[in-house]
């Protein structure tokens, strides 16, 4: 760097809003060439020598707030973020954005996601009580909450952006295509029918997560005839850039629709074979290692639970399936209410309404669920919680347990608690209880954060892993 050579000692003096900071060119350059500070010191901007050089030390003036700059300079020097009291975080972030250091700030705020070291970082109260359906984490640390006919979108500072509506149709699911694009699956409203056969509400659409503008509507055609449909669960396959959605058409066209994200056009449609409830699916999960899609349609949405693995290559086929239909219907019967394929892609974990975990082997067909007693949730306070659960079921819509797998750990929600299981045998290692927003109706992991949506008043909690201790 020409500048460094001229000053000899590589020292730089910065006058930021009247306060003088002295540092080295190396420290500033460590921010990267594509930041304001990196560009300012680059040779191309200092070709003519520096008029303001005093004692051989280059001096620059920056017309910004010195208090924030002090924090950011400290971040460049130490790699850690220390926010002094009285300096609001949004202000710091605004300044970081000016210098191009926002990513650094974000990275320094929290450590790498670890289910056993989570800390409650924030609790955000929602607006419409009681009807939250889903919370989804964005890849950049933001999130969205689907409730009723709207999806509320939050950036990673948990500031609310413009909400997303798909003709105000009830939203079933949402998914982030990338940090700036949000997919929404919504229910078609009966009666609202056009003469051309395409309904108004419902279906799948892509929105800008930043502005809330509608970007694209994904259409389904049956026999070259575009038809309106109700979209259920959404899933993405990042490697081939495809979107999957469970679909229910008006004329019994049930199945799983597939779209190419690049063109936005329908790529395929897997019609529901007899005995597999695909169109009603609660959850889709793409399995990279086997190139298959797991479709889970669970009790109580349907009378029985169905799990299916679909292969979309050449001749579309069902490669694995399981159902508990036909088992004796006693009251105490264990029904799988949620499922997730574990990260090794070899087995499915299911959970029943009594919070037992069970496992199914994906490499064997026609196997039975192996219920695990060892991983029984909430063993420590079983009695108390059973009572609470019973009470909860008594007067309001039940929140059934849900599952997620992330970073080798298994997460399960029960009531108002998230349980974390680790290791190959899925041993309970942590329980997380948040702000007290009532039972958990959904949770999601992404962008190094865990978002937990509670049933009462749509409070959602944000859990983060604190940065590792310095000493």
């Amino acid at each position, binding site marked *: 760097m020409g500048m460094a050579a001229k000053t000899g000692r590589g020292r730089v003096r910065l006058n930021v809003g009247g306060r003088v900071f002295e540092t080295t060119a190396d420290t500033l350059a460590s921010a990267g060439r594509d930041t304001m500070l990196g*560009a*300012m010191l*680059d040779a*191309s901007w200092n*070709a*003519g*020598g520096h008029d303001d050089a005093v004692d051989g030390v280059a001096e620059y003036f920056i017309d910004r707030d010195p208090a924030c700059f002090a924090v950011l300079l400290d971040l460049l020097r130490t790699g850690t973020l220390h926010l002094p009291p009285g300096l609001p975080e949004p202000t710091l972030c605004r300044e970081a954005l000016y210098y*191009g250091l926002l990513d650094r700030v974000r990275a320094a705020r929290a450590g790498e996601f670890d289910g056993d070291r989570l800390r409650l970082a924030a609790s955000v109260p929602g607006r419409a009580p009681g009807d939250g359906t889903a919370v989804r984490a964005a890849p950049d640390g933001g999130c969205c909450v689907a409730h009723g006919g709207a999806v509320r979108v939050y950036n990673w500072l948990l500031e609310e952006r413009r909400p997303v509506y798909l003709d105000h149709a009830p939203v079933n699911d949402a998914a982030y295509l990338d940090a700036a694009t949000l997919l929404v699956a919504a229910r078609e409203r009966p009666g609202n029918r056009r003469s051309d056969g395409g309904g108004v509400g419902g279906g799948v659409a892509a929105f800008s997560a930043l502005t809330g503008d509608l970007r694209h509507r994904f259409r389904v055609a049956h026999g070259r005839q575009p038809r309106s449909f109700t979209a259920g669960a959404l899933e993405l396959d990042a490697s081939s850039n495809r979107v999957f959605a469970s679909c229910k058409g008006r004329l019994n066209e049930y199945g799983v629709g597939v779209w190419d994200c690049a063109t936005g056009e329908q790529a395929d449609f897997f019609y529901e074979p007899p005995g597999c409830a695909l169109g009603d699916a609660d959850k889709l999960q793409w399995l990279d290692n086997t190139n298959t899609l797991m479709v889970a349609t669970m009790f109580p949405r349907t009378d029985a639970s169905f799990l299916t693995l679909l292969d979309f290559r050449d001749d579309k086929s069902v490669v694995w399936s399981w159902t508990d239909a036909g088992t004796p219907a006693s009251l105490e019967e264990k029904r799988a209410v949620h499922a997730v394929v574990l990260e090794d892609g070899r087995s499915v974990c299911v959970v029943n309404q009594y919070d037992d975990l069970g496992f199914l082997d994906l490499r064997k067909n026609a196997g039975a669920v192996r219920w695990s007693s060892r991983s029984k949730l909430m063993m420590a306070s079983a009695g108390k919680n059973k009572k609470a659960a019973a009470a909860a079921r008594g007067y309001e819509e039940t929140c059934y347990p849900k599952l997620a797998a992330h970073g080798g750990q298994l997460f399960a929600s029960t009531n108002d608690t998230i349980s974390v299981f680790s290791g190959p045998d899925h041993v309970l290692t942590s329980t997380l209880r948040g702000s007290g927003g009532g039972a958990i109706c959904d949770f999601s992991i992404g962008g190094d954060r865990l978002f937990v949506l509670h049933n009462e008043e749509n409070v959602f909690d944000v859990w983060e892993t604190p940065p590792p201790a310095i000493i």
Partner: protein
Amino acid sequence: MSSAPKKRGSRIEPFRHRVETDPNFFDKSWRKLHDAIREIYNHNASGLSFEELYRTAYNMVLHKHGPKLYEHLTANLKEHLEEMRTSIEAAQGGLFLEELQRKWDEHNKALQMIRDILMYMDRTYILTNKKTPVFDLGLELWRDTIVRSSMIQGRLLDTLLELIHRERMGEVINRSLMRSTTKMLMDLGSSVYQEDFERPFLEVSASFYSGESQQFIECCACGEYLKQAERRLNEESERVTQYMDMKTGEKITAVVVKEMLANHMQRLILMENSGLVNMLVEDRYEDLTRMYSLFHHVAEGHSTIRSVMASHIKETGKSLVTDPERLKDPVDFVQRLLNEKDKYDNIINVSFSNDKSFLNALNSSFENFINLNNRSPEFISLFVDDKLRKGVKEASEEDLETILDKVMMLFRYLQEKDLFEKYYKQHLAKRLLSGKAASDDSERSMLVKLKTECGYQFTSKLEGMFTDLKTSHDTTQNFYAASSSDATDAPTISVQILTTGSWPTQPCSTCNLPPEILAVSEKFRAFYLGTHNGRRLTWQTNMGTADIKATFGNGSKHELNVSTYQMCVLMLFNSADALTYREIEQATAIPAADLKRCLQSLALVKGKQVLRKEPMSRDISDDDSFCVNDKFTSKLFKVKIGTVVAQKETDPEKLETRQRVEEDRKPQIEAAIVRIMKSRRVLDHNSIMTEVTKQLQPRFLPNPVVIKKRIESLIEREFLERDKTDRKLYRYLA
């Protein structure tokens, strides 16, 4: 206290909805940036303050002027680029590329600085609205305004292709300028590089090499042509590393391969006087290596080389094995086969990188032609016989091992392995009985090789022969130990007791033994039958040897090593001076053919004439008379009288062996049929045929007609029956 003025003062100000910004804010700010961009393009940026410009752009975006700023920027960049275009267009001749390059460098530098100023817009407005980032926008404008402008696009391509053509013709060009120009195209995106340069480049190259290859093939020999092709391929890939995208390497190689090699493949490989066959004949390893590696790129290339090589081997092999001249000397015949095999092994090893598929082709070709001559099994056995007889005398044991290993290669090609076994047994018997087996180790090593190749069954009888010799040795010792006190004057005999069946059966032609011998042998018979109950002992006088001490009329003493027949003849002369053929025949009762051969070897072999024949003719008639040659001299004390050595069979013998082999095959085929039927119970005719053939393949290739006959015979003997409804089905009868 005055309230009135106060009241007047408390006038409510009209509510102001928003703070009005300077209406000229955008224009003022843009003017600043506009001027700065002009200074940057004029290489006069030293007076600019980055911080000020960055802040200006930041404020514009902050006050929602992002779209307008983006629009103005686009228009402004375009203006600058149009200025540049004019100066590039004006550049003459060779300066064109240089000027283009200079302007490209300038634009790049300027673009970098403009991007620095507008970095905040990149991060916010452009990201949110999915616009093209500033730097990429600059590249797109360069592409559309300059690289693809009507005056420059064609000229640029022509210049590049012209330079490449000149380089192909041997001129030196400015490679670094080429490199930076193609790099510019790549920087503009791989599609620009491909469409504006690579595709036309490949087309022009195709027509260049199509022409050049036509020219070469008219005047070059195959080897020379391939050298040219190799040189061109190397040149092209070097060119790619010098100044093109790495991905072009594969494509240009494909073009050269197609034009220079694939299109002329048949003509090159089959080229008269210089093609593949010629290279093989002359062992031109270097050319062969080149051909192999070049045609690796061509689909069907290796398979074509392989099939031409295979048919050449078959052709030369066929003429070798069917040449009547060659049949005269079996050892030479096999040696030639071995040499041929060595030759191709070397070629495949050195030039064809030991390619498995080529080795397979070689093997199947050999298998094909070796079996064209039904005497091959006999000859190979004779070759082994020759080697094992001479054994260590000529070669070290290691060399012998390698030779035997090579012979085993030939053995593997044989379809009639049982025929080989037959001959090998005969030859081995002769070797063992005449004591000519040079090395026991080598004999056994050969047996092990055969065993690993064909299994225990194949060699069990051969091993039995070795065991027989060992026990015979012991028995003879025991015999003398038991009768040591008796007449020490009697001749010593060494008896080899051969188990019937293990040894090749010979028509048992007895002869009258001399009384001295007869006495000893009768004694031995008594001894042997005394120790072994229920056995029968027959003398095979045609297979023995004897050492006799002879004192000639001139006083010279010699020890003669002769066959049993010869001994019988010589012993007659202890009591007679001269005998006629008829007398000898009567006295010994040796079969005429053997006797004649035996007398010829005693009387007519130069330097070993123990007997004299009257008259001295070659043929022997009944009235010819023989007497001891008193003038017999030899430098050696021990004289070996030639016995009839193992040699290739005469025609009637051959026919006999063949018949014996055919006869032996019958029970083997029947056994195979029964084995198969026993496990399958019911089977149709064709399946039996294939299964039997498969089972017996390691030993011989059964003739379908013979199999059919065997099936019929088994039906007759009620092992099998035909199905009542489907005549093609056979049933096994337990």
